[in-house]
């Protein structure tokens, strides 16, 4: 790439805009990345939902087999993680709806919305799973 002597077909080195590793992490930047990551996680996690629904529609035996996977320590962790990803993506999305109306662009408000979405998603995930642990919703 650095060799310019070849002439034809060689791309000229152009200055690149600074990227992630240049900036110190700001909370709105973190939640922006988290929004995309939770979106991607939810995307692949739909396999589990389709699997669960298919199992319920197949037979009691197969449903019990699938349920036993979700009942494991890892299965529970994935479901708690999925709950948080969904709620974080939802609160992050609500923030975007506000921005779509042209409101909420003060730097201070942006920070508050970022921290707020994180706080709400963690608290709500905690409350839901606490309710589940205490005997279900």
């Amino acid at each position, binding site marked *: 790439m650095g060799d310019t002597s070849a002439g034809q077909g060689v791309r000229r080195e152009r200055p690149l805009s600074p990227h992630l590793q240049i900036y110190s992490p700001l909370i709105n930047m973190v939640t922006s990345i988290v929004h*995309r990551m939770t*979106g*991607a996680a*939810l*995307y692949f996690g*739909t*396999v589990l*939902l*389709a699997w*669960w*629904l*298919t199992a*319920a*529609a*197949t037979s*009691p035996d197969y*449903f*019990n087999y699938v*349920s036993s996977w*979700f*009942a494991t320590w890892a299965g529970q962790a994935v*479901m708690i993680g999925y*709950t948080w990803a*969904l*709620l974080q993506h*939802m609160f992050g*999305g*609500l923030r*975007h*709806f506000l921005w*779509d109306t042209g409101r909420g662009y003060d730097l201070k408000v942006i920070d508050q919305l970022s921290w707020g979405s994180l706080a709400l998603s963690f608290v709500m995930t905690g409350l*839901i799973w606490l*309710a*589940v642990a205490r005997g*279900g*919703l």
Partner: protein
Amino acid sequence: MTMRTPLKTARNLGSAKDGTDHFWKQRVTGVANVFLGLFLVWLIASLLGADHATVKARLANPLMSLALLATIVSGTVHMRLGMQTIIEDYVNGEAMKIVLLMLNTFFAALIALASIFAVLKLSFGA
């Protein structure tokens, strides 16, 4: 030298020929998903540890089936659009981009069809 400005290709539906279609569908399904996502969390959380007969009866309830079908359709449309944006942002090779965009559609369609089929099978008496 041409006197045409870039505005020429940006008129009406723009150079991509679909205008704000992607943006708007992402918002509409996003708004729907706020409600449908909360419904899904409640549905699954309330059925944790339940036996097959209970789960089957709950999912076969017409209101539950309809809400679940809406969740599946709105959710898979939304996630397909979102993943499309991720692919377009990070994949630079044109061939690879086209392949991944196709796989994205296939994946979303597979999840949607498998889930819808399961819900309908339960509703119509599996």
